[in-house]
């Protein structure tokens, strides 16, 4: 598969910030994030709950308003879009939601659900053409035509998620944010949906931002992977590079924590992090990972590390990259 060579950029964020106000102070959900997504690639966004990955996904397509910074879509800054621009933009960027139960209006039938974006944007002049398109979309995502008049509560999670996908495709977008699209599904159904997403991309050359907490899924589906921790992207590289040559201590710990369904892989090098993820409300200066970092040093608190390129297409935000590898050497 391999990541596409130097190509056009689809989406780029510059110093993107999203703070939520809470009684205890601003919650830094997304803090100074600079990433780009190339046209036609799948960027995987991983992190644990509360790291801000879903918020980032929503700010990128302006379902949430950014607190600061910009999101460039092609050469336009979507943060500055007015109502009309935004309406046009909605046709170009879509989203598939996490929960196939709550993301579908229970009172609408399958065809009504898929027709909604077409009706909102008045894509077709009449109902006949709309219903032709609905049939076509149902075929595309693998929903049997007989389900057209069913309601969500009659369908299983996999089929519901197919509705969510069909709805996202209806307006022929270029860019789709997938927010944990398979997390609520059992492994077998999960595999079916992952294949569907892969096939759709082969067929229509979509650009995906794939948000998940599941590292095996993200490795399977992404071209490049961005790792988030407490509102910051801390490492970003080609999907195999991340797994074979992780540089950030958090990435290393995260990868070593994945339970692998094999017995012959003996994982002596598992890094067990101490404690919990701290609160993103009023985070202290310096490296966000400091409190749990196994290789932290005194100067880590002095400034917040920026995401910099440390190798070809490998970006890292750590004051002491490689420190953990250096530390481990004597032990071996």
């Amino acid at each position, binding site marked *: 598969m391999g990541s596409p060579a130097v190509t056009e950029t689809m989406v780029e964020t510059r110093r993107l910030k999203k703070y939520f106000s809470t009684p205890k102070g601003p919650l830094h959900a997304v803090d100074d994030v600079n990433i780009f997504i190339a046209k036609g690639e799948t960027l995987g966004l991983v992190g644990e709950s509360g790291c801000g990955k879903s918020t980032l996904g929503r700010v990128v397509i302006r379902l949430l308003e950014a607190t600061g910074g910009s999101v460039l879509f092609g050469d336009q800054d979507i943060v500055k879009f007015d109502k009309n621009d935004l309406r046009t933009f909605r046709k170009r960027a879509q989203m598939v939601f996490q*929960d196939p139960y*709550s993301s579908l*209006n*229970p009172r609408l039938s399958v065809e009504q659900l898929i027709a909604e974006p077409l009706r*909102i944007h008045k894509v077709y002049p009449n109902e006949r053409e709309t219903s032709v398109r609905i049939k076509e979309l149902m075929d595309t995502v693998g929903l049997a035509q007989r389900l057209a008049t069913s309601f969500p509560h009659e369908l299983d999670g996999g089929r519901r998620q197919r509705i969510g996908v069909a709805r996202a495709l209806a307006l022929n977008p270029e860019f789709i944010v997938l927010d944990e699209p398979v997390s609520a599904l059992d492994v077998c159904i999960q595999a079916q949906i992952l294949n569907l997403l892969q096939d759709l991309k082969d067929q229509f050359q979509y650009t995906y931002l794939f948000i998940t907490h599941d590292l095996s899924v993200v490795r399977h589906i992404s071209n490049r992977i961005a790792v988030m921790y407490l509102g910051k992207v801390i490492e970003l590289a080609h999907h195999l590079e991340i797994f074979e040559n992780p540089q950030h201590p958090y990435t290393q710990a995260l990868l070593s924590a994945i339970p692998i369904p094999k017995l012959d892989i003996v994982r002596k090098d598992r890094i067990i992090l101490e404690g919990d993820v701290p609160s993103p409300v009023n985070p202290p200066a310096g490296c966000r990972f400091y409190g749990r970092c196994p290789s932290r040093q005194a100067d880590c608190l002095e400034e917040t590390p920026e995401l910099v390129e440390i190798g070809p297409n490998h970006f890292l935000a750590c004051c002491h990259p490689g420190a953990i590898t250096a530390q481990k050497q004597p032990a071996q």
Partner: protein
Amino acid sequence: MVLLRKNSNLYLTLVRLRRNRLAVLGLWIMLILLLTAVFAPLLAPYHYATQNLVDAFEPPSWAHPLGTDDFGRDILSRIIYGAQVSLQVGVFAVSLAMLSGGVLGAIAGYYGGHLDDVIMRFMDVLFAIPQILLAITIAAALGPGLMNLTIAVGIAALPTFARIVRGAVLSIVGQEYIEAARCMGASDAWIIAKHILPNCSAPIIVQGTLRVAQAILAAAALSFLGLGIQPPFPEWGGMLAGSRGYLRDYAYMAVFPGLAIMITIMALNFLGDGLRDAMDPKLKR
């Protein structure tokens, strides 16, 4: 009938409602009551105001199945005509409260922020006055009469509806499918019309039914205190008040009008409870 497809929510709700015997009973009673009110002039053996002092204080007999009152008026006829008053007040007062309170609650819930604060603080103030007391004061300010009684009861119920609708809207605004609709480019008006209103109809219908009962009760209470419908026009609460001087000897004068209120309210409560169970999304899966 697109709405009544076999798998639609409405159809499933009706199927579940039909299984609830008490709710069905409540529905029948309300239907009968409605017909009674509409056809009161045909059904009532006498006119509600026809006085016949010779026949005053008649106990129940063939001529007067529920007896006569202190002016010799037929109690059955007065109860039949009274259904008109109670149903009108109940339905119109709740419609008034539902519309005005509902709009305020929906605005507060959907837009949130300062607008929400201002509306709900005002409702809090209204809530600090017990509803019946608020209704009494408004009724006093407006003066007696059917229309004023309806307005008084309706305004007193307004804050409750604002709260109910706001809660319902808030629970739906938080759902992912609202976000999905915004993601598709839907406008506020589209979201409210296509997603929020249809989905918060369940609690509103249930509360509406239960509140009609409360409104009838409140109207009866006002009339009982002499602040609602004025005699000779028949109102069940007013008839009860009129019987108080004769309790010792003519108990039936009090028993029957009270029974009419009780049965009506019970029927509405059965129906409301049944609707709630039938619409409860928790039972859906």
